[in-house]
């Protein structure tokens, strides 16, 4: 589907991860063009596309409780030098931790950005437990029964150009009992340790950067 008014901006360095998958889903439902924030070089082309669009959706992963630094660079250094005409801005942020509070800073950050730079903030969606998906369809999400219809409601807000209330993503969050959380921490850890063992590492190995400086001295 094509819709020249909608620009879907993936700000993840990974082009086939969950951030991109969510934009694919939007594209399939209401159209739009998917573009990627480059990790190096000029922002010129992206700025032009954003100026032409009426609706902009930014989708990215959570790094240290907010969007990746490259988006920060784009929004702090580049965008304020250009003119925009109150384009509608939506945000999506997804991360591994299954909690809204871990990721939500990203949306508030976009909201303040919009206010200072002639964009109209239209709300966003926080997807916890997103990293485990690793780009697989949303139907594979652990909490898909709730997440899928709520995310699709979010998509229809974008399609209509109306504000997306935070209740949509708040309802998509599951309360995980302590015992399940404990099991989850063990399961995720064993996956991580297995991966390290594959490369002959142990979690408790001496920190690499402690070795390096000592050997130079």
């Amino acid at each position, binding site marked *: 589907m094509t819709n020249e008014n909608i620009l879907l901006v993936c700000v*993840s*360095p*990974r082009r086939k*991860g969950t951030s991109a998958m969510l934009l694919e889903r939007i594209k399939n439902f209401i159209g739009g063009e998917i573009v990627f924030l480059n*990790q*190096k070089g000029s922002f010129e082309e992206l700025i032009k596309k954003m100026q032409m669009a009426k609706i902009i959706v930014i989708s990215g*992963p959570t*790094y*240290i*409780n*907010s969007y*990746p*630094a*490259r988006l*920060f*660079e784009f*929004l*702090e*250094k580049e965008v304020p030098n250009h003119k925009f005409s109150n384009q509608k801005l939506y945000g999506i942020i997804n991360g591994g*931790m*299954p*909690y809204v*509070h*871990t990721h939500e*800073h990203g949306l*508030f*950050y*976009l909201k*303040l*950005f919009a206010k*200072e730079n002639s964009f109209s903030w239209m709300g966003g969606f926080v997807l916890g437990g997103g990293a485990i998906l690793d780009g697989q369809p949303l139907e594979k999400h652990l909490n898909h029964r709730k997440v899928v219809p709520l995310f699709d409601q979010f998509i229809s807000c974008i399609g209509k150009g109306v504000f997306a209330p935070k209740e949509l993503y708040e309802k998509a969050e599951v309360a995980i009992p*302590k015992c399940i*959380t*404990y099991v*989850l*921490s*063990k399961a*995720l*850890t064993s996956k*991580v*340790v297995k*991966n*390290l063992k*594959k*490369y002959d*590492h142990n*979690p408790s*190995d001496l*920190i*690499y*950067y*402690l070795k*390096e*400086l000592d050997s130079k001295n």
Partner: protein
Amino acid sequence: MITIISDDSKNNFMDTIKESIKKTTKKIVVFKANDLNVEPCLACASCGGKTYGRCILEDDMQKILPQIVRSEKMILVSPIVYGGVSFHIKKIMDRISSVGDPRYYMKNGELVKKMRIPDLKYYMVGIKENLTFEEELLFIKLHEENINIMSVDGKAFIVEKKLDNSIIEEILKEIIYD
């Protein structure tokens, strides 16, 4: 040892603390984030696998990480931008995860991560004149989420006036002179 990383593109934090930090005998290493070449994290996952604990991007982060892993305190100083840190500081924060513990832990009934650096204290100083209340709360919230997920202690300081020695003294008294 204490590592201070400051984005001085909008302030002159490093110059302002020069005299003050002479008052302590502790080793203090300083980096000016806005003068460094730090690439954005590429999410290659190498630091959690093949090159465990080492970032494969060869840039100035290779000078910062050996200092951070030897520090008991890390202080990030940043202009407040849209209720967050500046992009210079955010690039460094994203890359610090390469010295994070890749395992998962449970704290207060929730999943969290840890740093591999024992007892690291993590401070943030946010600077902006005429700060709105919303922006201040958001900056503090970011820091609270950071210390929660990294399972470290720390504190965020807000400077909403022009930087001067008396403000710096107050902050350093709490972080450095103890």
